[in-house]
């Protein structure tokens, strides 16, 4: 299954990347490129990865998340939204859950709901 990243900005400081399909070793560079693009500007303070439609993540995928965290630095909060159970497990087993905020749905703190 192919991998797709859809990128959009919201309210100037929040970047939302929707990941669809399987994030395997071949796909990981696409994600890294998107992240590098975001990191080149300095307006982003929140990076939201919507993973509802991501069915699989290889180690390379997880590395891309690690890369995101390290590339964007402490000034940017990283949110993972709607992560599917097998992907959650991988993230927890490798300890990455400590570096991100895991959310069920796309309702960010400080953001009006509804």
């Amino acid at each position, binding site marked *: 299954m192919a991998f797709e990243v859809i990128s959009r900005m919201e309210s100037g400081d929040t970047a939302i990347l929707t990941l669809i399909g399987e994030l395997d*070793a071949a796909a*990981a560079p696409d994600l890294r490129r998107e992240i590098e693009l975001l990191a080149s500007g300095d307006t982003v303070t929140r990076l939201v990865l919507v993973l509802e439609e991501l069915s699989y993540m*290889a*180690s*390379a995928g*997880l*590395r891309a998340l*690690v*890369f995101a*965290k*390290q590339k964007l630095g402490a000034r940017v909060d990283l949110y993972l939204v709607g992560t599917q159970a097998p992907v959650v*497990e*991988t993230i*927890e*087993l*490798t*300890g*990455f859950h*400590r*570096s991100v905020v895991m959310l069920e749905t796309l309702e960010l703190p400080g953001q009006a709901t509804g």
Partner: protein
Amino acid sequence: MSTVSGRIDFYPTHNHEGYRMRAGDIFPFGATVAASGVNFSVFSSHATDCTLVLFKKGERDPLVEIPFPPEFRIGNTYAMTVFDLDVENLEYGYRMDGPWDPAAGHRFDPTKIVLDPYARVIGGRDVWGAGPEGDNPYQHRGRLAFDDFDWERDRPLEIPAEDLIIYEMHVRSFTRHPSSGVRNPGTFAAIREKIPYLKSLGVNCVELMPVYEFDEFEGHRPNPETGEMLFNYWGYSTVGFFAPKAGYAATGRLGMQVDEFKTLLKELHRAGIEVFLDVVFNHTAEGNENGPTISFRGLDNKTYYMLTPEGYYFNFSGTGNTLNCNNPVVRSMVLDCLRYWAAEYHIDGFRFDLAAILGRAPSGAPLNNPPLLETLAFDPVLAKCKLIAEAWDAGGLYQVGSFPAYGRWGEWNGKYRDTVRRFITSEAGVNREMAQRIMGSPDLYRDRGATASVNFVTAHDGFTLRDLVSYNEKHNYANGENNQDGANDNYSWNCGAEGPSDDPAIIELRGRLMRNALAILFTSQGIPMLLMGDEVARTQRGNNNTYCQDNELSWLDWRLLEENADQLRFTRLLTAFRHRHPVLRNRWHHSQRDYVGSGYPDLSWHGLRAWQPDWSPWSRMLAFMLCGRHARGGTVLDDYIYVAMNMHWEGQGFEVPRLPEPLSWFEFANTGIPGPQGICEPGEERRFENFPNLSLAPRSVAILVGKTPADREEQPWLSK
């Protein structure tokens, strides 16, 4: 402004079948992801040629084989950077060309692909118990490690050695039992789920039995009685010294064992628990001349192994071969390895299996000043790591007390183990030696201090604590070696019936003996080590060598936490007591004199009469007192502690020494009282009413605390 991308060394100079390369960096050895590609560096003292073999992950046949051009070779090293590799999906190995001349020590075979000894991730056996593929010519495969782990603010804890309480455990055994209730039994991740348990137990250091990649299928065979498969379960047989065992990681199938293990280490540190690795630098998984060629044998046999003049393998380890640790090349590898684990994994200490071998010359003769041991002792990276030797080997070199320590090395004190066992099983005339063991063995470690002594009654080798008091003989038939394996000198006693018993008197006696061992262990000077499960009376059904048992003989049954809740509580309160009382944790030996003007020696010996220890060859009673004003060499104020040990089969009355005003004695623990009444929370001790007469039940230990009757916080001179 020039940028790094403009550097000339970022451009390839060579091409091989479409793969672009240039001369690589010799350091670091191994395969390293670099800005411009992957750098491969390997050495062999006797090879004539070297070829890098690259695979796409999991595929049987190589992607490409790239011979090292002569200009990429300096000295005996081969280094090459290969560009544009898919680092996530890469596996690599080497073909070494050179002489096949076993009599001269050379076993080069270019038909074989061999593993890089510096491989930092080893794939191919990613899931525990998933067997080798018969036709795969390259079973254990080098992969790349990514050093991008987020350690946050973690660093090694550097807990003072005298404050440690070590818990020796096997990664898989700890949680593999179905009763563990964890999501991924038998893994690094599962240990993480059990950190609250370790914390509540009061241990502040876990010593993990081997976690370097090993092959559980080495020497595997069915149990002749049951047909059940017997494995190389403990893993004292290394495939690669730089790689964590993939099969111990729930994420091994994803190749993420490094991250999972580091996460465990970070979380243990967060909980205040250090991590020691049990490292096996005495032999490898390649066995003798009939064993497989995995790595070292094919890479540089004569360098890595101790060989007889005829080219056969010396066998000081009892397992087929002996690593040639005092060859300078191998010595460097061992140093590189330990530095790597200390720096990259934040490991707090190392326990060296059969460490006496590390002091042997390439000829096998013991060295007076072994360069490897000296190097490790003075290394700047390892400077704060605890180094602990199992100070003997299978070749008859026994160095407990005489291991070349350079002021740095501690030892597994085998004499502590044996003396306590003889004492608690009521052997007469052990008092004098027992006194030495309780004091941190100054007879063995006079200039090295009490922390040179790792005190233990049980360890992975030998009986569990419960089996020590339930079996006179080992029962190792399940190992399929006709009960010939495992130690015969166990100093054990079955308390009247061999194995399980319904007799309430026997059950009670066994419980008391176990409590005696624990009480002595946690009030001795030195570093106490508890074997996994002894706190809940784990049994191996009399098997004293479960090295091949991946089953309930080895696994910790978590139902025992309830079944033996009293013993668990007893252990927890003892560790809490030890942490509370610095007087139990002196770094240096006691002088048995008063050097602070308290009127009491720092440590004094007593018998049935106060101040009159009985050193006669028939005595089984002994008591000691620690003066609280001498805690930590007189720098800290603590309570007084008095421990009376009656190993006689009849009850005895001890005269308790008088305390200075205004202190009085309080009773913390009495192993003669079964159940919860036999011990209390530290600080909530009951007043000892019958001073000076302490009546001790047969075979029991009492621990008293001398303190002010009022709350100690109210006493200005007893500042905390």
